């Protein structure tokens, strides 16, 4: 499947719409990581006592990296992503996003976030749903339309732009929500199991599309998944988490080439990395027993 459609569309639209300049908070040097987390912990105070969702997390994500979080259910993947997005506040430790606090980064609209559920507005058509962040950013009608057309093409929903969310299947809704995040054209993409609800074929296809997009545009992506092949195929760095309390068990730097195709999944290097991830997951589980 050698398709570069996403990139074609990308270049053609770039001629008409100037991309907003990057956040003023980005530190000058190449050394500043996009995300820098040190000794971060997060405890939820619940009625049944404290829940240690995250404990002693150390993580650096450099510009242009594709980082996957993988781990058993409840190990804190979503929570960690939400801390980066300033949807959850750390209880201890340090975190910077784009060299500043997560809150400042959020106020700068530094990232696009794809939730675990599609979270489309039921009273807006698909097109209008994608327009939502663009309206808030204050783009002109023309710019909005250009971006909407581009991202709808990318997720192959162009024929459904006028439909309401409930007229689409769950997988299509999820694609629409990905399109909505991409329309913001953020330098940092935070994605919480975006392809979890999709069938294998569509998933492969979107994996490919996302990979091409990332490889071409040098975006930084933080990606939560339950799928080992998906994590290995997409990532430059795989973070294996384990539960109770949620913490990092292993960090695997991938030495796969930056440009990848889906055939890569049969190669020995790929299988070797996948094996290490699998062992990490198993060991993480073993802590429970």
């Amino acid at each position, binding site marked *: 499947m050698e398709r570069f459609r996403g990139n074609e569309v990308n270049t053609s639209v770039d001629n008409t719409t100037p991309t907003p300049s990057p956040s003023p908070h980005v530190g000058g040097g190449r050394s500043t990581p996009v995300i820098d987390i040190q000794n971060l912990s997060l405890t939820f105070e619940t009625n049944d006592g404290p829940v240690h969702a995250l404990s002693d997390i150390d993580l650096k994500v450099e510009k242009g990296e594709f980082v996957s979080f993988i781990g058993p259910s409840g190990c804190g993947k979503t929570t960690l992503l939400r801390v980066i*997005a*300033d*949807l959850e506040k750390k209880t201890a430790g340090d975190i910077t996003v784009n060299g500043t606090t997560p809150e400042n980064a*959020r*106020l*700068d*609209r530094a*990232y*696009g*976030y794809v*939730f675990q*559920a599609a*979270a489309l*507005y*039921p*009273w*807006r*058509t698909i097109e209008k749903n994608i327009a*939502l*962040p663009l*309206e*808030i*950013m204050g783009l002109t009608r023309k710019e909005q339309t250009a971006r909407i057309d581009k991202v709808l093409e990318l997720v192959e929903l162009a024929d459904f732009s006028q439909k*309401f969310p*409930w007229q689409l299947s769950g997988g299509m809704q999820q694609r629409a929500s990905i399109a909505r995040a991409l329309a*913001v054209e953020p330098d940092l993409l935070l994605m919480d199991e975006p392809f979890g609800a999709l069938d294998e074929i569509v998933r492969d296809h979107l994996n490919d599309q996302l990979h091409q997009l990332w490889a071409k545009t040098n975006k930084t992506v933080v990606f939560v998944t339950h799928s080992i092949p998906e994590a290995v195929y997409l990532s430059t760095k795989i973070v294996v988490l384990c539960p109770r309390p949620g913490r990092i068990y292993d960090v695997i730097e991938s030495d796969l080439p930056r440009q990848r195709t889906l055939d890569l999944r049969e190669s020995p290097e790929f299988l070797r990395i996948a094996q290490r991830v699998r062992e990490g997951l198993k060991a993480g589980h073993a802590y429970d027993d």
Partner: protein
Amino acid sequence: MSPLSRLAAGTTLPVVTVVIAIIAIWYVAAVALNAPFQRDTYERAKQTDVPFSQLLSDTLVQKRPVLPAPHQVATEIWQTTVEKKITSKRSLVFHAWITLSTTLLGFLIGTSLGVLIAVGIVHSGVLDKSLMPWVIASQTIPILAIAPMIIVVLNAVGISGLLPKAMISTYLAFFPVTVGMVKGLRSPEIIHLDLMHTYSASRLETFFKLRLPYALPFLFTSMKIGIAASLVGAIIGELPTGAVAGLGARLLAGSYYGQTVQIWSALIMASVLAGCLVGMIGLIEKNVLKRMGMAA
């Protein structure tokens, strides 16, 4: 499909059945309630051995029955609507119009006030704590008791005519709207609020793009209750004004002079009016929600 089976399949047949049943019960009740007076009349006239059929037909044509028969009310309504000029003081349409204008004015102010209070309550914890108890307390005061005071006080400061009466409507209408809107504005799912958060949307944007659309179905439901309450308020507001005009005035005048037929005509007119008003809101609701893709 035969016309009959189509009737049975639709809602027409059940509705007609219920109406017929109500009318039948009404007739039976009219005979039962009016019979004692009729027997008294026979006794005073020293009439004995009046056949039951005579008693039956006499109870249904009394001038001042305890409970007028449906056809008496129907005749009265016909005479005071179709057969009277609308400008006549005896036209029921004239009186209904007076009440309707009070209702609509009161409803408009009440709805706006209700929405405003709800917006305040949802956006400010202080208002939530300080205002909500008063909103609820306001409805525990019997409106009949304070209606004359409102009218008198407003008259004293030189406000007369439609507005004082509309104030009573407002007083009754704002409450369901406030409660419904507070619920509606608070109903967005967390994930949708989170989404707005990631866009660092302002409160105003979150309000107009998320909370308000979410609240609309709640608003319409509250408005249906509110407009019916408005009508009740308008009628109550007409009572202390000396029974000059409006359906409330007709009710009061009717009870002064024992004109039960007139009272019942006004009552029927009021309920028809209420039905139309609620139906109208329902129609707007359907249209708006359909255009928003939310109608089932």
